[in-house]
């Protein structure tokens, strides 16, 4: 225990000696102060003293939800998961390469401490930095938002474990690469490369999922239009039965049957397309399962913080138009899903991926990588 505490304290001293550590920490504490400069108005948002008309305004979203979203989308989504994470990686990437440098590693390994303990304590000291950074950001945001909107939201502190978890996936990659290459620069660059790879994979997954959800929505719309057309067909046939055939009725029926046949063919094509996209999505999920799920981990935070707390926006005429309500005069009229509907469907689809899958499989990846590190560190001659 004495040794573990010593390594953690040493880790803090190491970070403390780097200017970037303090710059990042101060920035993390200062950025949330910007919440003071932002407010929601009846027509949009106010930034410092500038009024900006925006679709997001006090009439469609509660103030508390607006700031909660702002915290998650901008504070966590942009600052903590991109900018602060890059700064944190730059700050901590050298911890493992410095540990395994000749002359330094001898000093540590010649002490009565297990190699696994040394490595894990050093790894933990990197995570301590990320924890301090997120905790500073969240604590200041908590106070600022509490003062500003009068609502104290302890749920914001959920950002601390989730963002640290997110950082730990990347830091495990960085630690492994640092151990193998013994180079801070190589570890940092390759980690960022891996991160970009994961981002591309996640983005591809999201795009495929979004396209699939669009296609599913269109398929639903096609099927509804077919139902309406068949109802119309029944009505025309009843009319013929009641009033007898004439040229006009027969022509209407023939035209309708022709369009139904066309729509049925379109629907079949659409169904095939949806099935293919579902296969792609399944493949993507299979490919992602053993990898860390960075974006989805942050989405867990967003879901947890915003689920069931957002005031549902009142339905407006524009919104109704966009939501796909068909033209009553034409049974074949199909309105594709609006962007909001697609977005909601995408979030629902992502929401179907359980927290256990997102975090559990990511942690398994991290555990595997750390196990590999311990194996390499434990067996290597220095």
């Amino acid at each position: 225990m004495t040794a573990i505490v010593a390594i953690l304290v040493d880790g803090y001293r190491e970070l403390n000696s780097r200017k970037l550590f303090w710059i990042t920490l101060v920035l993390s504490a200062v950025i949330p102060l910007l919440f003071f400069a932002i407010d929601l108005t009846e027509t949009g948002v106010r930034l410092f003293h500038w009024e900006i008309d925006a679709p997001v305004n006090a009439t469609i979203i509660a103030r508390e939800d607006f700031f909660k979203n702002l915290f998650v989308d901008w504070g966590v989504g942009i600052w903590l998961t991109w900018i602060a994470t890059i700064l944190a990686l730059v700050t901590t990437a050298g911890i493992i390469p410095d540990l395994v440098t000749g002359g330094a590693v001898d000093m540590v390994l010649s002490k009565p401490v297990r190699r696994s303990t040394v490595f894990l304590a050093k790894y933990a000291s990197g995570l301590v930095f990320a924890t301090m950074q997120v905790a500073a950001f969240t604590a200041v945001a908590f106070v600022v938002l509490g003062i500003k909107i009068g609502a104290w939201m302890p749920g914001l502190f959920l950002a601390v474990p989730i963002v640290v978890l997110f950082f730990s996936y990347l830091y495990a990659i960085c630690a492994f690469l640092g151990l193998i290459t013994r180079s801070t620069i190589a570890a940092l660059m390759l980690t960022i490369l891996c991160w970009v790879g994961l981002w591309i994979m996640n983005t591809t997954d999201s795009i495929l999922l979004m396209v699939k959800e669009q296609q599913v929505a269109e398929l639903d719309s096609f099927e509804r239009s077919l139902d309406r057309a068949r109802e119309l067909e029944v009505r025309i046939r009843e009319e013929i039965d009641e009033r007898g055939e004439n040229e006009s009725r027969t022509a209407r029926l023939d035209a309708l049957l022709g369009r139904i046949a066309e729509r049925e063919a379109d629907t079949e094509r659409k169904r095939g397309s949806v099935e293919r996209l579902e296969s792609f999505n399944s493949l993507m999920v299979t490919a992602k399962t053993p990898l860390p799920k960075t974006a989805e981990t942050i989405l867990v935070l967003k879901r947890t913080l915003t689920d069931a707390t957002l005031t549902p926006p009142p339905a407006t005429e524009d919104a109704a138009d966009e939501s796909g309500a068909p033209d009553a005069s034409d049974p074949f009229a199909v309105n594709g899903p609006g962007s909001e509907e697609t977005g909601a469907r995408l979030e629902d689809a992502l929401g179907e991926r359980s927290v256990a899958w997102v975090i559990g499989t990511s942690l398994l990846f991290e555990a595997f990588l750390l196990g590999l590190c311990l194996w390499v560190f434990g067996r290597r001659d220095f």
Partner: protein
Amino acid sequence: MVSPAPPASTDESAPSFAGSRSGTGGDPAIDVRGVRKTYGRKVKALKGIDLRVERGSIFGLLGPNGAGKSTLVKIMMTVIRASEAEGTVLGRPVGAKETLRRVGYLPEHHRMPKYLTGRQAVDFYGALAGVDAATRRARIPGLLDEVGMTQAAGRRLGGYSKGMLQRIGIAQALVNEPDLVVLDEPTDGVDPIGRRDIRDLLLRLRDRGVTVFVNSHLLGELEMVCDRVAILVQGEVRSSGTIEELTAHSRRYEIEIGGPPPDWAAAVGATAAPAAAGLTVLRVPGAEAAAIQPVIDRLRSQHRVIHAVRPARENLEELFVRAVAEHEGDLATAETTR
């Protein structure tokens, strides 16, 4: 390898160290046999080292660059895993982590974190060695004083000279009050005053009953403090023993005379060599003074002026060079035979 008992001494009045010895008489501090280290299939760094170091002695390990000295030390310190090794260090099997609680180690080319102060560095490595905080607080001021670093202890290592780093390195090696101290090139980069201080420290440690194992290129330094030495060449121990034992066959008398060498020098088994200021040195093999009396009588009978008569023997450097040369000669012979 058989080793006579070293001239170990203990100082009962010495603070703290003396009471912690687990006995200096019985089992050796280091007793390893057949230590081999092979990298890949071809590179044999150590080819079966047998080494025994008695408790309470200063042991010097010599060897040219690449001989395997540091590899052997690192195996004992668990930094490197031996391909094969038997024996014990402080009574425990080679490679046992628990042994390191009673061992202090200063590696060659060590790198301590530059952001730590001297005091913090000793404290950090003390904590890694398992020394509790209260003990460290009590012990560190004395250690810093012992290595002459009290004044600079609050400064960061990044601003230290090489000699100062060596002193702090030695202090951290002693912070757990070890039974065995292993120092790899401890005087590397240290000025003459610092080297003398380190020599004195090693002698004080021995007087307290601590076993000191030193790797060094500075043979003169080792000669002044080591009870026993071993010479390692290309992964093999070429010779080992006390310096007295290893140089016994080279004992001789040197007679410094005026004028040219006498023409009968070879007839009495002496060799002659010119010396400064027109003098000649006659080297007469043998450890006994009686052996040179006839030579002196003959010189006196010829009215030759005798400037000096002194006993002499091979020094450690000459011994070392000879051992390396013999090894190279053996290799050349083996190659020719093949």
